[in-house]
């Protein structure tokens, strides 16, 4: 499903003293099957944006299109079919856990949409997010923060949505868990052609997994493009303080101190090690 925003603005609590415009005239198009990272400072409108994609919020102005679905301010048509195709993992997992047991929570979505899930599928999704089957009978309120995050991810993945929206899905995961879950998203993207839109503050994710990046600043789309290209001309990203991935910092530092150009397209650790060791072994420094 292609996703497009056409001049979309969104205002919270309009015509009250607390009125706040969170998005301003945002336009972009994402092709079906993309892996997109969304970045921007605290409060720049990222969570607002993704909630417009599955109809949790309706645009104040402009039009959002997701596949054949159109969302505008005044249309009141059902978003049920849209939600079945567009799964969203919220920024705080607590916002989507409310049943008595973890198992009930994971089965909530499928029941709601009339989809049956076998025990085998249930165990598989639990395993994919790195949890033990024994967690299924526990209360979602009596598990650790990282375990809650994993359950929230499982409860969305079990529906196998065509579009997967992730709002900081790795916050609170331990590093090996983070790697495991990122690899899982990558596999779903490659094998099932899932479209992934992921909000993240971790620029490593953008560089290593995404093929497109959107950067927001105070409700406006400031920059978009291929992450490697954006990072290799990274002045803007650096000045606004979103940080650069470690590999890019290293490439820049090597260039600054030694004049050696390491290719931005070959930023894996192995590739960098080959280029750097060849240079170091060649000798001849002052």
């Amino acid at each position, binding site marked *: 499903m292609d996703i497009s925003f056409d001049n979309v603005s969104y205002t*919270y*609590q309009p015509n009250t003293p607390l009125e706040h415009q969170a998005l301003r005239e945002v336009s972009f198009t994402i092709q079906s099957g993309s892996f997109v990272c969304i970045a*921007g400072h605290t409060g720049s409108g990222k969570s607002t944006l993704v909630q417009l994609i599955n109809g949790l919020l309706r645009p104040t102005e402009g039009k959002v299109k997701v596949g054949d679905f159109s969302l505008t301010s005044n249309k009141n048509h059902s978003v049920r079919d849209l939600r079945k195709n567009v799964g969203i993992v919220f920024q705080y997992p607590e916002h989507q856990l409310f049943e008595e047991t973890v198992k009930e929570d994971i089965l909530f979505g499928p029941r709601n949409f009339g989809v049956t899930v076998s025990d085998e599928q249930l165990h598989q999704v639990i395993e994919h997010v790195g949890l033990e089957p024994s967690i299924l009978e526990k209360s979602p309120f009596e598990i650790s923060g990282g375990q809650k995050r994993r359950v929230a991810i499982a409860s969305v993945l079990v529906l196998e949505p065509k579009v997967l929206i992730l709002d900081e899905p790795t916050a*609170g995961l331990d590093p090996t868990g983070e790697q495991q879950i990122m690899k899982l998203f990558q596999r779903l993207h490659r094998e099932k052609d899932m479209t992934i839109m992921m909000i993240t*503050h971790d620029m490593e994710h953008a560089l290593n997994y995404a093929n497109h990046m959107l950067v927001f600043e105070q409700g406006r789309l400031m920059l978009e493009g291929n992450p490697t290209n954006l990072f290799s001309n990274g002045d803007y990203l650096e000045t606004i303080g979103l940080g650069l991935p*470690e590999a890019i910092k290293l490439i820049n530092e090597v260039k600054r101190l030694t004049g050696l150009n390491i290719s931005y397209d070959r930023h894996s650790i192995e590739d960098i090690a080959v280029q750097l*060791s060849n240079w170091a072994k060649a000798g001849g420094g002052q």
Partner: protein
Amino acid sequence: MIQFSQVSYQYPNQSDWVLKNIDLTINQGEWVSLIGHNGSGKSTLAKLINGLLRPSEGEVMVGGVELTDENLWDIRRNVGMVFQNPENQFVGTTVIDDVVFGLENMGLSRKDMQYRVDESLELVGLSRYKYREPFNLSGGQKQRLAIASVLAMLPNIMVLDEATTMLDSKGGEELVNTMNRLHKEQQLTMISITHDMKEVLMADRVIVLKEGSVWFDGKPVELLQKDLRIEEVGLLPPFVVKLTNALKKRGITFKEEPLNIEELVKQLWIYRSTT
């Protein structure tokens, strides 16, 4: 000073021991990173420090006294805790109310109170949001508010349970630096639960939990340099360590282990000059 002697903990009606025989002393003015895999017991340990939970076995002492029902409130005033989910600590209907709430009953003058509220909101960058509703803030703004409410109380001990996970790189760094400054200026004890290895490297000491027991307790550098199997506890080596290892495999030798990108490039430069 915080002391745990032979502390074990079991949640009510559960058979598993979540913490097992923990012995720890954390001195006033130390900055400790507490890390470990998901479910290893970090948040549980934090809640034992401020008396939200009581040990099933063993003893927890804060400032030389054991926690009792009588001194609970005094101890909580000394131990500021930022919870893993900031929403769990919101009490006010506006941002400013939320910070003020913690300061009530502290016997502060109106002027002092106002000063502390303004200063802490300024420190976390929320001055413009004073009259907003805490639950309608963005994810990162919520974390900032939770930190401000605790900072305003000027506690001796700050326990931060993954308090900056949703901040962008610059925002997160700025807050960690602010905390570091307070820690130095005011001899503030900092216990910071995190999964961020860069933050861990800034601490004086790192404690690693594995399945409810202490797996490592020492200097952050040692954790990376000793040949420990850190994957076992859910950790991965940082970029610089991985790259250093990949270079060593290709025959490059290092006089000292580089801990950041600048050091690594400098050492390569030296290697090249002497080859």
